[in-house]
């Protein structure tokens, strides 16, 4: 437990640029201790903010006011690995990479591989429904969580989902994955294990510009080429990354595409040839296939460290996370560069091209007068463009504090009201990670208002007894 001002200050932020404050930090080492902490918070009426490694990019773990921060970094046990059932039980503080390392000797991996995987926790991955380059083939975290143990806001402990393929009743496991700690705090996760691919081939393609790379990606998908990952980096990202990893990324290319193909040897060889053909037709200037594991490792290290490497340009970043239909990628990319130029901002693009998941990254120095306002305005314009193009405002980082007020771009009041009712069912007092995910107005009362004729009294009377407004 820590309550000294210096330590509390360190838990005031995550890897986003949003900062808050908290009253107390606890580091339980078991589910029993988590439960005890939650019970104390319930008695004292304290808000609870769950936190893993604090690598989140949307402010989901940023506490506000007098919150109690429950950190899972001491809950790092891999409880049970059962290769025959293709599952493992882990505590929430286990690092994603450590889990992958623990199951690799059995011939398996944990498929979600966010760029932060060496540092981010499985609990955090569950909270944000994390993605990652290889989610193109394997799907995001939700598809890899079979069951989880949860401590609710009142201290009750529940198990949601089941080890088997089908759990009867409501899929509350699915509701909790991606709920960013607003429904309870996860104390154990049963993850699905994915067999390691027999053959993996990593290809690095150079393009004259990111738009050409994006068109190539759309063409690959349209022609049925199934890749495990398709990652794009523009020239500014490549330059930042290369000076850190020295992996041989072509710094003169306008953009690079990192494509991973996996499967049986013959299938992979065929796919590599096909990729070469499609890429050639879309303006690729070179293609290199990693010769060995070390070269593969270096290329991926570059991609996964791109975020931190941009410190080469300026000390602060604001990383966006939005998704558009793949066919709209070239157009959206052009918009991103245009919007950045209009606001006199440096934007770096590295993204999960295969998923249409864009990560425009503004790099700036907060010391510069008015720069933050320009960044925020440009960010909003990008999000609005994404939604207009049929996309969504978050792909994998979560909503947190950063995006909650952008949800009305996507959802009606009724949509948000339905979500708020779920939240209220889990946490009637609103103490679990308050102010996160849903915008301030989205409550069941608003829902009733929106459905009725504007008559507040009538709307309230129409609600079931006990409904929180």
């Amino acid at each position, binding site marked *: 437990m820590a309550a000294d001002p210096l330590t509390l200050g360190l838990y005031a932020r995550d890897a986003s*640029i949003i*900062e*808050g404050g908290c009253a107390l930090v606890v580091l339980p080492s078991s589910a029993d201790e988590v439960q005890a902490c939650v019970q104390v918070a319930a008695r004292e009426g304290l808000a609870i903010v769950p936190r893993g490694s604090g690598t989140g990019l949307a402010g989901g773990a940023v506490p506000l006011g007098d919150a109690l921060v429950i950190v899972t970094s001491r809950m790092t046990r891999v409880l049970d690995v059962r290769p025959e059932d293709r599952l493992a039980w882990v505590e929430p503080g286990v690092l994603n990479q450590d889990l992958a390392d623990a199951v690799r000797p059995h011939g398996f991996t944990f498929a979600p591989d966010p760029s*932060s995987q060496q540092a981010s926790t499985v609990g955090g991955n569950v909270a944000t429904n994390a993605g990652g380059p290889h989610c193109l083939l394997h799907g995001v975290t939700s598809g890899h969580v079979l069951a989880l143990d949860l401590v609710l806001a009142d201290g009750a402990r529940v198990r949601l989902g089941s080890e088997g393929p089908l759990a009867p009743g409501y899929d509350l496991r699915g509701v909790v994955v991606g709920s960013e700690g607003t429904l309870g705090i996860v104390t154990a996760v049963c993850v699905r294990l994915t067999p390691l691919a027999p053959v993996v081939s990593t290809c690095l393609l150079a393009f004259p510009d990111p738009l050409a790379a994006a068109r190539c990606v759309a063409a690959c998908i349209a022609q049925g080429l199934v890749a495990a990952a398709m990652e794009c980096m523009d020239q500014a990202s490549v330059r930042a990354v290369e000076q850190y990893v020295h992996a041989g990324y072509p710094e003169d290319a306008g953009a690079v595409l990192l494509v991973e193909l996996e499967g049986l040897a013959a299938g992979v060889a065929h796919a590599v040839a096909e990729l070469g053909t499609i890429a050639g037709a879309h303006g690729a200037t070179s293609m290199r296939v990693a010769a060995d594991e070390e070269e593969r490792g270096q290329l991926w290290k570059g991609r996964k*460290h791109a975020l931190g490497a941009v410190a080469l340009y300026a000390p602060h970043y604001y990383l966006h996370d939005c998704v558009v239909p793949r066919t709209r990628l070239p157009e959206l990319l052009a918009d991103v560069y245009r919007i950045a130029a209009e606001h006199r901002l440096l934007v770096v693009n590295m993204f999960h091209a295969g998923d249409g998941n864009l990560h425009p990254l503004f790099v700036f120095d907060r010391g510069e007068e008015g720069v933050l306002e320009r960044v925020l305005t440009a960010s*909003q314009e990008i999000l609005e463009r994404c939604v207009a193009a049929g996309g969504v405002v978050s792909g994998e980082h979560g909503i947190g504090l950063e995006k909650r007020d952008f949800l009305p771009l996507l959802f009606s009041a009724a949509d948000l009201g339905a979500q708020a009712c779920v939240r209220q069912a889990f946490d009637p007092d609103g103490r679990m990670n308050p102010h996160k995910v849903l915008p301030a*107005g989205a409550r069941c009362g608003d829902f009733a208002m929106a459905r009725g004729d504007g008559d507040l009294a009538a709307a309230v009377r129409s609600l079931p007894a006990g409904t929180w407004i």
Partner: protein
Amino acid sequence: MTPPAASVGGGLPPGARFAGGAVAGPPGWHAGDAPADRDLAQCVACGLCLPHCPTYRLTGLEVASPRGRIAAMRQVATGRRPLDRVFEQAMDLCLGCRACETACPSQVPFGRLLEGARAQAEPGRAAPARLARWIGLEGVLGHPPLLTGAATLASLARPVLPPRLRRLVPAGRLRRRPLAAVTEPSGPRRGTVAVLRGCIQDLWYRDVNRATVTVLARAGWRVVVPAGQVCCGALHAHYGHLDAARRLARRNHPVLAAADHVVANAAGCGAHLRSYGELIGADDLAARVRDLSVFLDEHGGPPLRHRIERRVAVHDACHLLHAQRVRDAPRRVLGAIPGVELVPLEEPGRCCGAAGLYNLLQPRMSAALGAARAESVDRSRAAIVAVGNPGCAMQIGAQLAARRSAVRVAHPAELLAAASRP
């Protein structure tokens, strides 16, 4: 269609703000060396360093992580927090292993930040701690006769020391026969190499120094051990006595700069000599300093005439792997010995907990790390663990002894000397 329930992009709720802008007051640093604002700004707080930090791994505490330490420094630099005991303890718990630097995509110069922060913490320490550090660093380490005296005392007192300390003091008599000032090569001369004798290294591991001279001479170099060289000052710099470190560096600079090459066989000393450019502007010297393994890897080693049929594990000293970014050279040089089978250690690059004076100042954390390292050495089923730094050798040796392990600790120079006997 119902209207949106909340305004779009309404900003942050009460209590939240955008980080990085607020300066609460003037910096809390006092005059003298301090973390530079530019270095602090280099950290984007991504958190990728966390799993690479040994103290974070053991505690799970943000304050025991590189990102947390930098945030603590920022709190002082922006006037939000004073330089107090909590800050001092946060800096003291750091090993200074610099594994975070290898992991950091933003290339934050963490070692430099830590030295500045420790220099700031120093004046605020309790009087006894300050005095002990002053006697140890500025008194004993800076003055060879006092150091010899202290080492002799430690050796004599070894039987009555508590077990933890006893294991750290190597057994056996201190070697009195000094190293030859000049050793001519066996064959045609390729050039002159100056060897940094070191302070602790020369007292307790003079055999290693002798082996270093022998190996270099057998590789065709004229080897000089310049008189007048003093402690390199690494420990002074790491523990916040930067002025003393500069004084020692200025004494060593002219003494060592005369040779074509300068070789260090202690990773910590080598890393620090290579930072003399930054410390006192001695770029000419810093650029010519090499760790023994790197030097032999670049220029070729001695003829290897004897087989060593052993499984050998290489423990990477942090100040070789992380501070000098050298991983392959010791493996290539040792792997060239006929019969040697190199075996990997689990958790490569993990600090053994010796970390200069850390094993004296933070015994609990140090012992936990040392025990884990010795366990991985044992599990590798190696017969020999090769270690290129005296602090690590003492620590791993002590922890292996505590486990009653049969694995022998050796410096790469000793193995190369044995394999290159005429």
